């Protein structure tokens, strides 16, 4: 027997759509402003964090130019300090930097003499393609394992969840090297130097996708098994629907919400994992630029990359919110 408590809100009369329109506009504005705040905060944290790194930036630049690792006389350092404005007080440097941000000027790379936008622009696309494709591949892998193994008898289910736990514990680097050796060197299906060709991107994508698929799978599986016990699944079965149709049409949509949230969070981790995949497969990407920039104390480039990654993260989260509302319209009301 069921309980009868306070039922849902009585059938509300239709609210005037004007008020709802204004409310969503305000919501979007708040989201945009907070997104900008997040970006500026991330860039500022990076700017100041880099000043903590020991050693003088001008020394690092000269050493980078000449490939040496020594101190330089003040006379040799002076032109560099002037050129990049290191001689100005810190706050002025920071305000110039943030001021530039708002005009889309991310400053000039110390080591490549080019605007940071150019430095990042050249290598951003391959990284985005890699992380985007990795996320999609992770989803496909995770859902395939779920649909094949969830609640299909004790052994098969155990097999599926062990696979997920296993893949979630794989170090990205190790996966990369093993895939390279097995599928590019030994069985030569894929090219060793992937570059940015479609066929060459398969292995790097798998390197990032397999561990992430483990995570997505675990989260979705718990929800999927709970949903399969829900009454509306029994209703669907009483309509004569087959097991697979019930899983695809009904159970899946209900169980993907936690994985969608995880995807928003995973974008940040993917970018970090990307540098490993890019290095193992010789792919261009901002991960490698980031590592070199930090090592050469190239502050504008590092801050620029953080800005881009933060931007990707913010956009990813907007997409997550949209996906959320699409999958579960009940959330759109609140």
């Amino acid at each position, binding site marked *: *027997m*069921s*309980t*009868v*408590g*306070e*039922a*849902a*809100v*009585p*059938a*509300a009369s239709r*609210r005037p759509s004007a*008020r*709802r329109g204004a*409310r969503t506009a305000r919501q979007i504005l708040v989201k945009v402003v907070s997104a900008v705040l997040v970006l500026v905060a991330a860039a500022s944290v990076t700017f100041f964090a880099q000043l903590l790194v020991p050693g003088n930036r001008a020394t690092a630049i000269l050493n980078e130019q000449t490939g040496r690792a020594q101190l330089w006389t003040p006379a040799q350092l002076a032109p560099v300090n002037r050129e990049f404005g290191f001689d100005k007080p810190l706050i002025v440097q920071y305000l110039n930097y943030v001021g530039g941000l708002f005009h889309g000027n991310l400053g000039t790379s110390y080591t490549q003499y080019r605007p940071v936008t150019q430095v990042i622009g050249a290598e951003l696309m391959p990284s985005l393609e890699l992380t985007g494709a990795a996320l999609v591949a992770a989803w496909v892998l995770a859902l395939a394992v779920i649909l094949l193994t969830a609640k299909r008898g004790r052994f098969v289910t155990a097999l599926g969840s062990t696979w997920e736990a296993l893949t979630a514990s794989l170090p990205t680097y190790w996966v990369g090297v093993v895939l390279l050796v097995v599928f590019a060197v030994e069985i030569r299906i894929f090219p060793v130097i992937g570059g940015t060709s479609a066929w060459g991107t398969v292995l790097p994508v798998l390197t990032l996708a397999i561990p992430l698929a483990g995570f997505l799978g675990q989260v979705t599986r718990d929800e999927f098994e709970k949903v399969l016990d*829900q*009454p*509306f699944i*029994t*209703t*669907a*079965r*009483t*309509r*004569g*629907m*087959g*097991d697979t*149709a019930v899983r695809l049409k*009904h159970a899946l*949509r*209900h169980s993907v919400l936690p994985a969608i949230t995880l995807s928003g969070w995973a974008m940040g981790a993917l970018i970090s994992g990307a540098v490993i995949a890019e290095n193992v497969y010789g792919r261009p990407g901002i991960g490698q630029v980031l590592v070199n920039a930090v090592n050469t104390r190239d502050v504008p480039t590092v801050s620029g990359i953080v800005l881009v990654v933060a931007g990707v993260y913010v956009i990813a989260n907007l997409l997550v919110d949209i996906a959320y509302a699409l*999958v*579960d*319209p*009940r959330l759109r*009301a*609140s």
Partner: protein
Amino acid sequence: MTEVAVTEQTAVDAATGTPLLTVENLRISFGKTEVVKGISFSTRLGRCLAIVGESGSGKSVTARTLVGLTGPDSHVQADQIDLAGVDLTRQSERSWRAIRGRQIGFILQDALASLDQLRRVGDEIAEPLKVHGWGTRASRRRKAVELLSSVGVPEPEVKARQRPYELSGGLRQRALIASAIALDPKLIVADEPTTALDVTIQAQVLDLLADSKARGTSIILISHDLSVVARLADEVVVMREGEVVEHGPAHQVLHEPRHEYTQALLDAIPSEHTRGTRLVRPAGAAPGGTTPPYRPAKPDVGENVVRRSRKPIDRDRAVLQARHITQVFRGPDKVDRTVVDDVSFELFAGETVGIVGESGSGKTTTARIALSLLHPTSGEVLLHGQPWSTLSTSQRKPLRKRIGVIYQDPLSSFDPRWPVGRILTDALSTGSRPPSSRAEARARAIRLLEQVGLAEHHMASAPLRLSGGQRQRVSIARALAPEPEVIVCDEPVSALDVSIQAQVLDLLTDLQDELGVSYLFISHDLGVIHHMSDRILVMKEGRVVEAGHADEVFERPRDPYTRRLLTALPRLAQA
């Protein structure tokens, strides 16, 4: 095997030809335990067979077996399960799919959980059509709208595009029924189709099923509520612990039951007749089985009716007073909704005031305001004449021990990590005479358990391991611990089986007689309210539409809404 009071099969259906569905010696077991121990029944076109029983009687699993969905690691055996010539015992999964939806329609209990909330109502209704390859997309959509209007849903085109949670309870249930009858199946199996609904809507849905029966569909109705069954069933089967204890025409089973258990079920139903008496009489030998001993009491036969020996109500000591309390909620869309509108009442020492109303009437919000768990937008609540709702949290803390609460779902009101003992000792420590030592606390806790009909060995068990009735008894014990003068009961028994409900209501009335504690009793069940209350408030959309002495409100209802509620109340007399 108990003696089954079954009138001969042939006599019943002499007039109307061969049966649509025949079930002979059906046995169902899960692993080693057998839940259905050889039952037989049959239905025919245009007639309704009701299967009645309490939790664990096996009625639901029988229903599911009729559509081949008994459940994982189950074992089904039967001499015969025949649906119009088709042998349902030897169906493959593929052939079952052809039967489900087309030959047999299935209706579950609560449309909020039984319909997919993420899909449009129209798509849900059209799904059986699509599965069985009926028509095209466009024709299926049109058919869904037709089905919605045929089950009495207003503006079917608009509702078809909405999602189930956007509809009211009644409309949702109608949509669920529309989905079941989409392919006009010859047999409909309905498992508790109206339990989740309010009384007035319950009546409309039962009428809808009656229309379907009139059009020649055969209906199997599964329910725990005898009065609901009385309205629709032609034939009734009463089940207990997997066995059929009574089987016969509806009128005969509901008025002159041959089996003691059926009679006990009938008598355990609280109503205006049972007011002032105990629902469960001291019993003679119960006919075996695990349920506690009981003795059915006939409403009008006086010889074993046990009158309550009550203390007189002290009219001039108002224990709890509410003055013009109003509560306005600002929804997410910034629209204000008045949930409680100028409600006032008094509760005197030793008295029970009942608040009845359908879902959304504001009765629970009123209760929470009375408990000062919610600050009213306006108006005031007095406890023993002293200000109560206007106090600050710290000022109110010492007074808390004077007012207790019993929740509808006791399990969620206990900290999952605490065994019963600790729940009670914790409650005792908040009373006016907190126990001075652990030993004293334990002793008083055990006395509380005995007071509510439990025993010392329950001290160490986790609430999760107890039955529904036992948990509610622990909840009552906890409410009594600080020795409050007032206890607010928010739907305390609606989650319990009829026989357990009877025992808990008797416990509450015994405690009132013994301790003189006053109850503010909230329920949607008119029968329970009538049985328990001295005075009654009827609430509708936040306002008190009628108030007065219990018998007065029930015999001479002044407000049209109360009248409509009382007429909609399914009664045994209607069978």
